[in-house]
């Protein structure tokens, strides 16, 4: 698929020069105001469907756009998790050189989590909304054919079946098939990215554990507080003059309990899922890096093979050239994506941690008022 800028101009990415200019243009993109965005997607309104074979949840996906590629300015469709999963796989297949945002986890342990509980559905809805918004913001992914179909098709299943049929007809897989080639040298910047992602995942994992531990401790604290408050009340019953202040203390402690409960809930619902999402993101990014390595390895191997042949060929065989193209394409896309990702991540975490701080502040303020 040809890359094209949001304004419709196609870009030739086969030479390094143009990939850097692409980078420049992409960076300019970030500075554009929201008003110039021409595609808005929202995920909301979860509904439960009960069928003979299964029960599942669908979400409403609403699209508003001024892009020429779309026939209508507005669309509203219903999608279930399966559909999102399908979209993601399609994106990975068709845009293997790009970083595809993660989806919330597919499988949930049935005994532990209630798939139909309000909290779970809401957490998932938020994650799915984020997923689509990230794709919308991506200058390349947002123009993907599958994405458009996902947003607009009345009957997605029909399209899915069609897609499968096409594939088997064409015989040529869109996937990059890479064998077990060994990489000679990884360019420093990608090695650095790899290291960064490793440490990043580790640290996020640690933060996740710490946050969980805090929530656990807070809940245990809550248990004790719940016993503490009523004792003051009992004492108040004994006294005459002191009964009012004692009852007061008891009530206050009760309010503290409520505020603490809210804090823990918020942390569980808003903070933890984002951490987990970024860990998943990092995982998928590492996979992309591996693929990139593979592509580069293939290129190098082929290049070597040609050199060994010592044939007096003026022109480098086309497949080697293709490889080179792929490598460079990959590298450029990856770099560009990393930039975006870093920016977005920064924003996200900024918001996240500020949110956490806010919640704690709110908790303390509530307690103070009491």
């Amino acid at each position: 698929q040809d890359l094209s800028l949001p304004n419709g101009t196609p870009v030739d990415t086969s030479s390094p020069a143009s990939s850097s200019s692409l980078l420049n243009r992409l960076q300019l993109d970030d500075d554009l105001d929201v008003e110039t965005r021409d595609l808005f997607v929202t995920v909301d309104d979860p509904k439960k469907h009960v069928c003979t074979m299964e029960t599942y949840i669908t979400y409403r996906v609403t699209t508003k756009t001024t892009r020429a590629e779309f026939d209508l300015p507005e669309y509203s469709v219903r999608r279930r998790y399966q559909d999102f999963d399908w979209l993601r796989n399609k994106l990975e297949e068709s845009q293997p050189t790009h970083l595809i945002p993660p989806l919330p986890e597919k499988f949930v342990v049935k005994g532990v989590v209630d798939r139909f509980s309000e909290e779970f559905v809401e957490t998932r809805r938020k994650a799915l909304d984020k997923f689509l918004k990230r794709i919308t913001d991506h200058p390349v992914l947002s123009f993907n054919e599958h994405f458009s179909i996902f947003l607009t098709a009345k009957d997605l299943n029909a399209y899915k079946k069609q897609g499968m049929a096409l594939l088997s007809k064409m015989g040529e897989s869109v996937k990059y098939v890479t064998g077990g080639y060994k990489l000679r040298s990884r360019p420093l910047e990608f090695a650095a990215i790899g290291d960064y992602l490793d440490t990043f995942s580790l640290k996020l994992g640690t933060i996740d554990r710490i946050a969980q531990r805090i929530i656990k401790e807070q809940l245990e604290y809550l248990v004790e507080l719940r016993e503490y408050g009523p004792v003051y009340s009992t004492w108040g019953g004994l006294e005459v003059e002191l009964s009012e202040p004692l009852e007061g203390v008891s009530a206050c402690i009760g309010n503290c309990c409520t505020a603490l409960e809210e804090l823990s809930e918020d942390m569980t619902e808003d903070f933890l899922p984002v951490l987990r999402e970024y860990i998943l993101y990092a995982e998928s990014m590492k996979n992309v890096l591996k693929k990139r390595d593979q592509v580069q390895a293939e290129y190098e191997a082929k290049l070597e093979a040609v050199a060994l042949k010592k044939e007096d060929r003026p022109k480098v065989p086309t497949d080697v050239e293709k490889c080179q193209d792929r490598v460079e394409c990959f590298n450029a896309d990856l770099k560009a994506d990393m930039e975006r990702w870093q920016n977005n991540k920064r924003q996200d975490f900024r918001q996240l941690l500020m949110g956490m701080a806010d919640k704690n502040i709110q908790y303390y303020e509530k307690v103070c008022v009491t």
Partner: protein
Amino acid sequence: MEDCLAKKMEITVSEAEKRTGRNAMNIQETYTAYLIETRAVESQSEGQCGPVESLWRRYSEFELLRNYLSVTYPHIVVPPLPEKRADFVWHKLSADNMDPDFVERRRIGLENFLLRVASHPVLCQDKIFYAFLMQEGGWKELVNETGFQLKADSRLKALNATFRVKNPDKRFTELKHYSDELQSVISHLLRVRARVADRLYGVYKVHGNYGRVFSEWSAIEKEMGDGLQSAGHHMDVYAASIDDILEEEEHYADQLKEYLFYAEALRAVCRKHELMQYDLEMAAQDLTSKKQQCEELATGTVRTFSLKGMTSKLFGQETAEQREAKIKVLEEQIQEGEEQLKSKNLEGRDFVKSAWADIERFKEQKNHDLKEALISYAVMQISMCKKGIQVWTNAKECFSKM
């Protein structure tokens, strides 16, 4: 308002020192000695104070003083001592008597005890108390000379004995019931509070881990690095702040403990009254039975079954002389008994009057003190929250700069 010692004299327990010495069984032991400083204050002149006098006392001497006061003034709710052993501890607090924090809190508690006694209208006038403050040598002997120990032993026995009073004074029964309930509720409160403190400590300390992780994370970030690093610092501050917060709360716990022990003292007064009442009832009963015996002997009728009656029937009646002698003895006893009863009644009424006066005084003091304690506890909580707000606001600012 009577002139209490507290108004004429400044009393402080200013220092605590570890000492080693040999005890009564010649075994070496370590104990803590407390320095009591007193200074006469002239209420008329401004700033003119007498010289500071001081002496050292150990906890066991305080105990001796209190025992003496409890026995000598059974109608007074005697102020309690701070606890002998650390109780209601949560995991960070040491249960060791030699722990400096415990010693410090005990020092404050002992000072509080002396001030309470010194401001009590009756107790402050006691000479033994005065000697405790002023006379280092020979004080123990002085106390023992009062012979209170004998009374103490019988009192201890009596307090623990079970007996039933036929006509209990309702007010005292209610009061005893109240003191039992108060003891129960305060100990429950202290136990739960200790658990609450433990948990809260855990919550704060785990946040310290954030500090470390943020620091490590900031090392691999470019733009986010500074923000993360400084936020991490605030998390460390947050985690550390709990130590001071909980130390302050211990003071509140100590105030509650004082009244926990006060409840015990209150109960003791009620028990003493019960004892007196029982004593009175026994004496009255004894008198009645003696009168009856006398009457029987005099009239020769046996109204109630008695072994004597039986034996006399079996072995023959006594002579008129013997009977006369017995009657005389009984009449003497009856007279004694009536006098005793009169004085016991008087004693009882006096006791009730003065005990009730002190109980009223105690109630007022309790309500005032506990109200203040609750208020200061609330203030502590608010301050803790304000600190929390401060830390998280700072952290938020750091995050916003990421």
